[in-house]
């Protein structure tokens, strides 16, 4: 599967052959840093001064490289497809090899960064519970009313939230039964077939 680059992206990457081999490695490093840590305008300015090219060129080159790397890593394209995709830009053989190496070296890390970007639901962290018995209240004396209080701690992208729930023991038993049935679904033939195919 080949990447299709738009005219704008071709223009961004068009500055690379003029910059030279060493500059391209530097821009590649900046692109990977951008993906790891986010935008760093001062680093781009420093690189521009060091390589004696304008900051704009550096910025656009880094953006072009970032797009190239993320799209290639996202689709997990093979070496041949990557080479075909960049051949379209008409770069030198040496530059093509450099870009391919950049892609292969950083592919795994970029994929793990991209994996983190998917939206996540709050997930289970821990559970605290307490069993109480209500003996009396202002309206009614001499009662026996058990209640289970649960504090559910949830995690969502490093945000901790807590939800307090209260129920009586029979509802709790019903809840446990339902969850057991849900787990039991994994053992049905239908689910087993799908899991086997996924492996």
């Amino acid at each position, binding site marked *: 599967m080949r990447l299709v680059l738009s005219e704008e992206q071709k223009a961004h990457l068009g500055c690379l052959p003029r910059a030279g081999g060493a500059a391209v490695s530097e821009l590649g490093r900046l692109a990977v840093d951008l993906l790891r840590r986010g935008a760093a305008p001062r680093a781009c300015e420093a690189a521009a001064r060091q390589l004696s090219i304008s900051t704009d060129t550096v910025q656009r080159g880094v953006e072009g490289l970032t797009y190239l790397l993320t799209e290639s890593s996202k689709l997990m394209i093979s070496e041949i497809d990557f080479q075909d995709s960049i051949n379209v830009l008409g770069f030198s053989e040496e530059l093509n090899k450099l870009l391919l190496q950049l892609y292969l070296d950083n592919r795994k890390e970029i994929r793990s960064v991209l994996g983190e970007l998917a939206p996540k639901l709050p997930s289970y962290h821990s559970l605290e519970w*307490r069993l109480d018995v209500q*003996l*009396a209240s202002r309206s009614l*004396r001499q009662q026996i009313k058990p209640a289970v209080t649960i*504090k559910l701690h949830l995690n969502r992208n490093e945000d901790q939230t*807590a939800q*307090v729930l209260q129920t009586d023991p029979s509802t709790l038993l019903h809840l446990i039964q339902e969850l057991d049935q849900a787990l039991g679904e994994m053992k049905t033939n239908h689910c087993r077939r799908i899991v086997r195919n996924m492996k």
Partner: protein
Amino acid sequence: QRFRFCGDLDCPDWVLAEISTLAKISSVKLKLICAQVLRDLLGEGIEYEKILKLTSDAKLESGDVKATIAVLGFILSSAAKHNVDSESLSSELQQLGLPKEHASGLCRSYEEKQSSLQDSLRACSLRLSRLGSVCWRVDYTLSSSELREVNEPLVHLMFNLWDGERSGTAAIPVALSADKFRVLLAGEAWGGAQLRPLS
């Protein structure tokens, strides 16, 4: 096989696996490590360097040291949770394969601190909110825009709560007329009378 210190359930596999690690340490050093783990469970802070020194003779790797601390923490807190006496704990640990001297050393440390451990576990049980303090003030209203001669006492109460749900303090101000305050006090007195036979 059911164990009382595991809450009448099977012993977890990881605990079983680490018993052999515990047996590698001498029984005297194990008792000292227990004392450190008990300090940690009671919230007094653990001295990790001392534990490293005590385990150095047994030539345990760093993963094994952490596993030792974890398994001792589990055994001691679980035994306190299920109110297991020290002889039963000792015999159950020996059934799991812990040598006699190790088990008796561990259980002697457990016995010394059993009630403080249970008190500490009781204190950190789930509580949604807690009354910190109550401040009061009695004013006497002379007159108002509605009525020229009011001449009535007014009670101001400030309840300082620790909110377990949101983990912060909240101050709730309440203003009551003298009659309402008397009703409140009567309710309190009745509630207090209900609690007396329980304690």
